[in-house]
């Protein structure tokens, strides 16, 4: 028990960041599950981070309320943005959402109350590990249940074939928008938790690099299941810690591992688990089921 206590103390920040990254990975997973490549979630994270930090520091709003308001603001921004960008598909959709990310970053650099390039410092570090992991459990459970619902099936149908999905009575635009807004709210919630874990935030934390990182978490973990993004975020966040003995070479190894996963497990790390399941089913002669 003491050993566990020590472990938690030493790695508290890393464990917290893993949970936050898992939430972010789930936030982009929703749109990926519906077959839409969006890269706006770093910006939505920024909205949540700044909103909850400013509300807490200037107005004394308690953390849960600040997180909720940040998520609400983010969802409110996602609605008109989604209406505009979901006329686009594929790469064009991705680029349009990157553009939104840049707009948010520049706005944060310009507004009088966001601390400009210096960002916000001295944010009270009141995020506890259980806040993060309770959020993660709730979000993962809800998404897991939604996957099997009429909405989850509609998202999957849109991903598989948009034209055919429309013929089955699915209002394509509305479902894409719902996925986008839900993702924006979750990213903002994670951003708020992250701001109160780290003392300080600045616009550079939420740029293009961050957007790509979130996407990589989800893709490496695999998109078909809720466990994938959590798995991917955990591994990729812990990897630099695990590779610490390699010192200055560790980023090279982290990059190589990433390349290996993408090349040999294109459907993500979760494939490893599925492979075992399929093999077992083949043994009992029920491969069709998988």
């Amino acid at each position, binding site marked *: 028990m003491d050993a566990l206590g020590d472990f938690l103390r030493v790695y508290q920040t890393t464990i917290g960041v893993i949970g936050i990254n898992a939430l972010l990975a789930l936030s982009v997973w929703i749109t990926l599950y519906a077959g839409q490549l969006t890269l706006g979630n770093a910006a939505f994270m920024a909205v949540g981070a700044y909103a909850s930090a400013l509300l807490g520091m200037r107005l004394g709003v308690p953390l849960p309320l600040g997180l909720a308001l940040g998520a609400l603001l983010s969802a409110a921004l996602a609605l008109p943005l989604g209406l505009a960008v979901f006329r686009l598909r594929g790469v064009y959709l991705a680029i349009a959402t990157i553009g939104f990310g840049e707009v948010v970053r520049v706005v944060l650099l310009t507004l009088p109350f966001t601390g400009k390039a210096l960002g916000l410092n001295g944010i009270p570090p009141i995020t506890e590990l259980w806040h993060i992991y309770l959020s993660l459990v709730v979000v993962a459970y*809800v998404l897991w*249940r*939604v996957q*099997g*619902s*009429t*909405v989850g*099936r*509609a998202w*999957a*149908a849109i*991903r*598989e*074939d948009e*034209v*055919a*999905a*429309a*013929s*089955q*009575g*699915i*209002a*394509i635009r509305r479902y894409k928008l719902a996925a986008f807004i839900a993702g924006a709210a979750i990213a903002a919630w994670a951003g708020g938790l992250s701001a109160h874990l780290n003392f300080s935030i600045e616009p550079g934390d939420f740029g293009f690099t961050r957007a790509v990182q979130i996407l990589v978490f989800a893709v490496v973990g695999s998109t078909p299941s809720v466990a994938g993004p959590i798995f991917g975020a955990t591994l990729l966040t812990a990897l630099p810690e695990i590779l610490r003995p390699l010192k200055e070479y560790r980023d090279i190894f982290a990059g190589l591992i990433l390349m290996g996963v993408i090349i040999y497990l294109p459907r993500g790390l979760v494939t490893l688990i599925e492979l075992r399941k399929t093999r077992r089913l083949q043994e009992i002669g029920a491969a*069709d*089921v998988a």
Partner: protein
Amino acid sequence: MLLECERISRRFGGVHAVADVDLAVAPGQVFGLIGPNGAGKTTLVNLISGHLRVDSGAIRFAGADVTRLAPHELSVRGVARTFQGVRLFKGLSALENVLVGRHARMRSDVLRRLWPRGAPDRLDRERAGLLLERVGLTRPYALAGGLAYGDQRRLEIARALASEPRLLILDEPAAGMNLAESTRLRDLMRALVAEGLTIVLIEHDVRLVMDTCERVAVLNFGRKIAEGPPAEIQASRAVREAYLGTEDVA
């Protein structure tokens, strides 16, 4: 009339894909739509199902103007279709494909799903299973993309039927089917019509068209060149010329 098209037209650039076509489909019949390749049959179907907008003209379904409606709105009103070349949700199981087909008839169950023990779609799954049996598919959990081509065509019909449509549009359903399969398809269509469904059938298989259709319309270069009972159409000189050229070779 269940479906009425009134002088509908659609151009792509300078090409009149569909030009001034009038169509009236009475309820409870199989209405054939034939014509040489490129005659505009699939474009016409896309206009009716809302995947394309007409440039001019009007479409009425069950008495209501549906000219400007989107595909999902038409699905809710009872128009279902299959696609030339099959468009299934390949990564989903056969059963899930049919369940997606029921989307327009299912209430959203997201909130009920949050309770861990809920299986609110049990009845829908049973009905989907029965539909699969009806079209002759025996492996509900097989991935749609892994099915044989004939099976994929039949799965697409099951998916279309899942929405409990009033009008079913089949775009070349027998393509790639052998004689036994197309005979089973004919029997299925007859049974469905006996239950009150209306079918618009686009098909190259002359035998299937002659066996099932009560009326047939012939398209050529986007225009309707003939319409009538199948026997009349078969004897028509204009139709023979459309298929074989102007020199009378038959």
